[in-house]
């Protein structure tokens, strides 16, 4: 198990290095106007050149990358070129919002989709048709359309929730809960629809296996067969889809964050990329990659715990 984790961590680090370098290269080739954009329209050409030198934009790609990587290894991600805000503080004030949004959504999706998927697989009939129908409808409705409908109904007409985020540093749990509910629901529908479908298929496949018949013939209660054996064997399929959904959401929440004016990572990523704020973009990329690696590692570990065959392979 330890060597399994070590292997995963090693591959994670190599992915991290590769993505950092690749991102830095992309930013390098699109960094033509950065100094001009920082100084504004009225700065003279000499000032722009001086700023380029001050930021080190005139130096070769590899020199710049290794300097950034060296500082990053010491925990120094620098400051935003545009706002002078330290990169770490810019990210750490926004990360909790995005992570809360994504994690709460994923947990809700996991619970609801599992219940619905299992019910559909075991019970079939109307609930199965409902899940299948919902999967098609849910997939067809984009998150942001749903978000706009939710705002107009629950925030503007019924006034139950705030239309945009009311989270501030001194807000309590109630402000967080109120501000997060509609965005989470907007993310849930699509996720539940597609993952319930996956779990339904996996459970049906397991229910047809010989071991289920054997367990039943030994008189083991149906609930025990379902939750202890079938679900355990069907889980890896669902977990993989959930982890993919999580990674997709990290990037996909940007539109939801914008509609609800949630000060999360999405807005920061879009803003910093459009301006060419290299230290901030690199910080955002690095944090995101680390989160994705951790999530993948956790999914692998849970899969290994659920299914001994994974550990062996």
């Amino acid at each position: 198990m330890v060597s399994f984790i070590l292997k995963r961590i090693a591959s994670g680090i190599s992915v991290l290095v590769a993505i950092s370098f690749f991102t830095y290269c992309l930013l390098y080739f699109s960094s033509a106007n950065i100094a001009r954009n920082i100084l504004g329209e009225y700065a003279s050409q000499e000032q722009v050149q001086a700023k380029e030198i001050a930021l080190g934009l005139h130096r070769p790609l590899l020199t710049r990358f290794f300097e950034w990587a060296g500082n990053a290894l010491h925990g120094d991600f620098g400051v935003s070129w545009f706002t002078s805000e330290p990169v770490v503080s810019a990210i750490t004030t926004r990360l909790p919002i995005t992570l809360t949004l994504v994690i709460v959504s994923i947990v809700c999706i996991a619970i609801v989709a599992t219940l619905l998927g299992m019910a559909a697989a075991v019970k079939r009939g109307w609930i199965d048709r409902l899940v299948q129908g919902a999967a098609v409808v849910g997939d067809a409705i984009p998150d942001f359309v749903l978000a706009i409908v939710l705002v107009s109904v629950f925030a503007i007409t019924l006034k139950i929730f705030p239309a945009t985020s009311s989270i501030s540093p001194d807000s309590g749990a109630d402000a967080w809960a109120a501000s997060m509910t509609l965005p989470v629901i907007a993310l849930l529908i699509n996720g539940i629809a597609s993952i319930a479908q996956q779990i339904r298929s996996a459970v049906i496949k397991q229910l047809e296996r010989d071991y289920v018949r054997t367990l039943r013939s030994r008189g083991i209660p149906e609930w025990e067969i379902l939750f202890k054996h079938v679900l355990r064997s069907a889980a890896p399929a669902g977990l993989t889809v959930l982890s993919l959904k999580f990674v997709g959401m990290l990037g996909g929440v940007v539109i939801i964050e914008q509609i609800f004016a949630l000060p999360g990572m999405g807005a920061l990523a879009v803003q910093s990329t459009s301006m060419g704020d290299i230290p901030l973009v690199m910080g955002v990329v690095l944090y995101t990659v680390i989160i994705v690696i951790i999530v993948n590692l956790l999914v692998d570990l849970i899969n290994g715990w659920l299914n001994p065959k994974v550990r062996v392979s």
Partner: protein
Amino acid sequence: MKFGPKSSALAVLAAAAIALTACGGGTSASGGGGGAAATTLTLASLQDLKTFDPTDAHIGHRMPIYQAVYDSLIRRAPDGKLVPMLATEWSYNKDNTVLTLKLRTDVTFSDGAKFDAAAAKANLDHFKAAKGTDAYQAASMKSVDVVDPSTIAITLNSPDPAFSYYLTQALGLQASPKAIGTDGIKTVPDGSGPYVYDAKSSVKGSQYVFTKRSGYWDKDLQKFDKVTIKYLVDLTARTNALVSGQVDAALLDPKSGKQAEGAGMVPHKSQVDWQGILLYDRDGKINPALANVKVRQAMNYAFDRKTILAQQYLNEGTVTDQVFGPESGAYVPELDNTYPYDPAKAKALLAEAGYPKGFTLKIPTVASYDPINAVFKQQLSDVGITLQTESIPDANYVSDMAAGKYAAATFNLYQGEPWVAINQMVSTTALYNPFKNEDPELTAMIKAVQNGGANSAELAKKVNENVTKNAWFVPMFRLNQMYFSNKKIDVQPELQQAVPSIYNYAPAK
């Protein structure tokens, strides 16, 4: 065991319950607009500030954030008149090159430092040296002298009819001399304004919270206990926040404005910008066709401005053929009939200019201009001109235009003080005259405006007539600025300004 209908229904209910776990406390969060007699003001801002350093301040959308914490030397009233603020009186010498300002003596900054002539000089000198976002405002400033502790004299290189206006904007903002040029002021402002920054409740890039400064010298400018400015870049989010009562005022657009009006919000419409095509390459360096005045005039005749305004902007604006606005003093009403929609005349002019089959014009475009550029393309193609659009990143739009990469571009420009407008798009130093076009007659007219003193706006009419007749631009419309507020507050729109100044809001009477 099989799931019966009851347990299935239970599972669905459980799913719904989980999805709605966080319902509690929802209503308590939507009270941003304040209670019955508003003691708080919450505004939506279209733009975020770069830093709190006054040298990073920028006219328009970001100014209210700076105005909350910094006083300026002179204040601009809603009707555009300049009134005392930190400077109690000011006057020019005979040849308009030395401006002497008398300053208040009872003002202190957040850190306890006193405001005096030395502090004002330090601020002005630093603004010029820092060459920040609005550095052009200090371009004509040669030196600042302390005459006595409450008087400064600003010497200009040459007369600048807009200089006292600039002292109401970024150039006039006064920070504590102890904080000027430090890194600290970038994240925590240190001024003497009506409100104090509440760093603990603020989040960079999301919201800025300010509380009433105790002992502020002008209670009339301090009408709320707390002011919050939320950065809401998304139009839908701004509209929703306003309609649901989370913010008290926001800038919308004609379409979302209809929704806000339907929800009982109060419109405050004013015309700030003109929109049209700026024909930069009037010497034909990269597009020879534009060197011919007949070609430029043909382009002006090619547009059915009234129909475009109705279809694209729901008639929220006025069609125009000139780039100076009605309140600028340089406006000539008759000029608005210079180029009526006449495609036949446009074709005839193109033929006379040697382009009977038209020509191709390449312009840059960004997402926000895509819809209007599509319309321009259609109308120009009707007279034989092919408009090619090249998509570029938003951040590069202005810098690419300023670098002379395009012969023309669609843009919105401010219709303000004539001297500001001339230096923005007509003079050889103007940012939006990238090819430095000039002709001796026009240069003489510009010189006359510069030295015209109180008469300069009147003299600017000649400049207006010249650039209109010579078709330097294809002006289309003066668009309505669709500013909306709820009924808890009173708002006075500010002449020729994108959004009202922070002083223009008051609790509803």
